[in-house]
């Protein structure tokens, strides 16, 4: 079973449009939306949810105002500036301390050192993940709670779920839509994947961000392919990106031209290749033949064996 992750470094380069099109061309695959804090793939495939699970992240602290004596120990020890002195009065003190949930990183230090036992601490439900059916096959996706953390852990969770589904249904391709950046959700998406497809736009920031995420992929031993999106916007930069890719052992597999049909397809809730046979669709079709060839040569996915770590 092979797992292809589409990644970019910079946001908004066309990852989701490419993933959706490749899924259509693949016929049958398991789709995974690893961009758990701004997921968009479901907008194209209108998934029918068949399984829904709560995602429990790390703990969060909560001060019980009734027990707080306003001693300030928690505020003194918290390294995350998560303790605010604006909690309600409790009859004994005019103000109590309060934990700002969006800033709490769940270290539990305040809980351990509160002499009044005024701080509760427990795992917080910080999102949901879903297994759905779509017109191209099963899809695993998630919704991280607003202002929640632990996105890397959630990514590992849904990739493992996708592996199980692929094994059970004997589907030999898992197709993942990645998130921008190089931080914890990206590390969690790349680790153990068979192959990365970098979707890059020919701009100074496109190349800058691509080189950083390519370095990350190399460090994680994930081989890579390159597609330049909106390639005709700047042919010279397109060529520079392809040359840089080759130098890093990444194989260029296609140039997708700027094509307004891409946006039109998105509005019509279709993949680019379903919507039209315009230049972008043709380029993606040609690219898919190459990607398929490379997929045969790379290692199987190791996502099933990943240990879930907490970040």
């Amino acid at each position: 079973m092979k797992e292809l992750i589409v990644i970019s470094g910079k946001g908004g380069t066309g990852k989701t449009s490419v993933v959706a099109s490749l899924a259509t061309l693949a016929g049958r695959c398991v789709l995974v939306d690893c961009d758990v804090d701004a997921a968009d793939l479901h907008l194209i495939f209108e998934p029918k949810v068949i399984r829904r699970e709560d995602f429990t992240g790390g703990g969060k602290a909560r001060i019980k105002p009734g027990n707080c004596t306003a001693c300030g120990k928690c505020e003194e020890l918290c390294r995350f500036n998560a303790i605010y002195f604006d909690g309600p009065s409790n009859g004994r003190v005019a103000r109590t301390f309060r934990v700002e949930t969006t800033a709490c990183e769940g270290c539990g230090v305040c809980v351990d050192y509160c002499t009044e036992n005024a701080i509760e601490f427990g795992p917080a439900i910080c999102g949901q993940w879903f297994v759905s059916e779509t017109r191209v096959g099963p899809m695993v996706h998630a919704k991280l709670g607003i202002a929640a953390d632990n996105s890397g852990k959630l990514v590992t969770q849904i990739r493992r779920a996708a592996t199980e589904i692929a094994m059970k249904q004997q589907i030999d391709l898992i197709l993942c839509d990645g998130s921008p950046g190089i931080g914890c959700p990206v590390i969690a998406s790349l680790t153990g994947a068979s192959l990365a497809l970098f979707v890059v736009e020919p701009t100074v920031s496109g190349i800058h961000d691509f080189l950083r995420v390519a370095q990350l992929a190399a460090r994680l031993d994930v081989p890579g392919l390159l597609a330049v999106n909106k390639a005709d916007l700047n042919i010279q930069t397109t060529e520079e990106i392809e040359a840089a890719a080759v130098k890093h052992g990444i194989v260029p597999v296609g140039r997708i031209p700027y094509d307004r049909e891409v946006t039109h397809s998105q509005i019509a809730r279709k993949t680019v290749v379903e919507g039209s046979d315009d230049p972008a669709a043709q380029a993606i079709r040609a690219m898919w033949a190459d990607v398929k060839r490379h997929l045969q040569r790379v290692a199987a996915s190791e996502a099933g064996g990943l240990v879930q770590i907490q970040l």
Partner: protein
Amino acid sequence: MRIAIASGKGGTGKTTVATNLAQVAAADGLAVAYLDCDVEEPNGHLFLKPTIERQQPIDKLLPVVDLTRCTFCGRCSQVCRYGAIACVNIQVLVFAELCHSCGGCILACPADAMREAPKPIGELRQGMAGPIQFIEGRLNVGEAMSPPAIRAVKAASAKADLTILDCPPGTSCPAIEGIRGSDLVLLVTEPTPFGLNDLKLAVEMVRVLKIPMAVVLNRCDIGDDQVRQYCENQRITILAEIPDDRAVAEAYSRGHLACDTIPSFAGHIRALLKRLSNGTTQ
């Protein structure tokens, strides 16, 4: 005034708006500071082309064990909620990538055998881009946690009339760390289904943090009318609508500030600045 430029979706034009707004405001005589809080992929320097005057490491504190004092009681490992310390026989292992530098293990050690030592996770770069104060954080490749680096950028900022924070995309910890403490969040989006979906998530995030917000609709003529309708229903002001323009995209691709060479674009940014100073927001 501290303005955070954010978006749920990536690639909607945060850096374009942030850098051009900085340039236009500085030309107007305002003291401007530009803070690149997108430490995973900082791009502002490509457009503002600052002269970097100071570079210093951004450190994360990691526990170090003094084995001559350690009794291998395992207390440090028990209190760590992140599983970042393991105590096995006569060894204490620290997993740097899991550690949040909370200091819990140091406090818990009954043998006084632990202290903290800095480990670089990135770099803080400061300088000037013409009259604009420039501060950038740059996370090292392979580091998973960006919030400490974002905090370092924000802590380094000096006083200015207008502080612009170019924030990372998304709605989780890095985005929140970027916008926390700002006076206004400008959400840059585009009129597409993806743009709308991610805008809704970003709006929910900003509401949790209780910060006033407004929207910039970039490439306002490429899609449909859903974002405008949404903003109207939610009573969120659209402070600027910037049309799609191949010349702007080409300037961007080369690392040029579009406001320097494209008058129509400069006009949109100047109008945005004016509306910001008039305080027309939610």
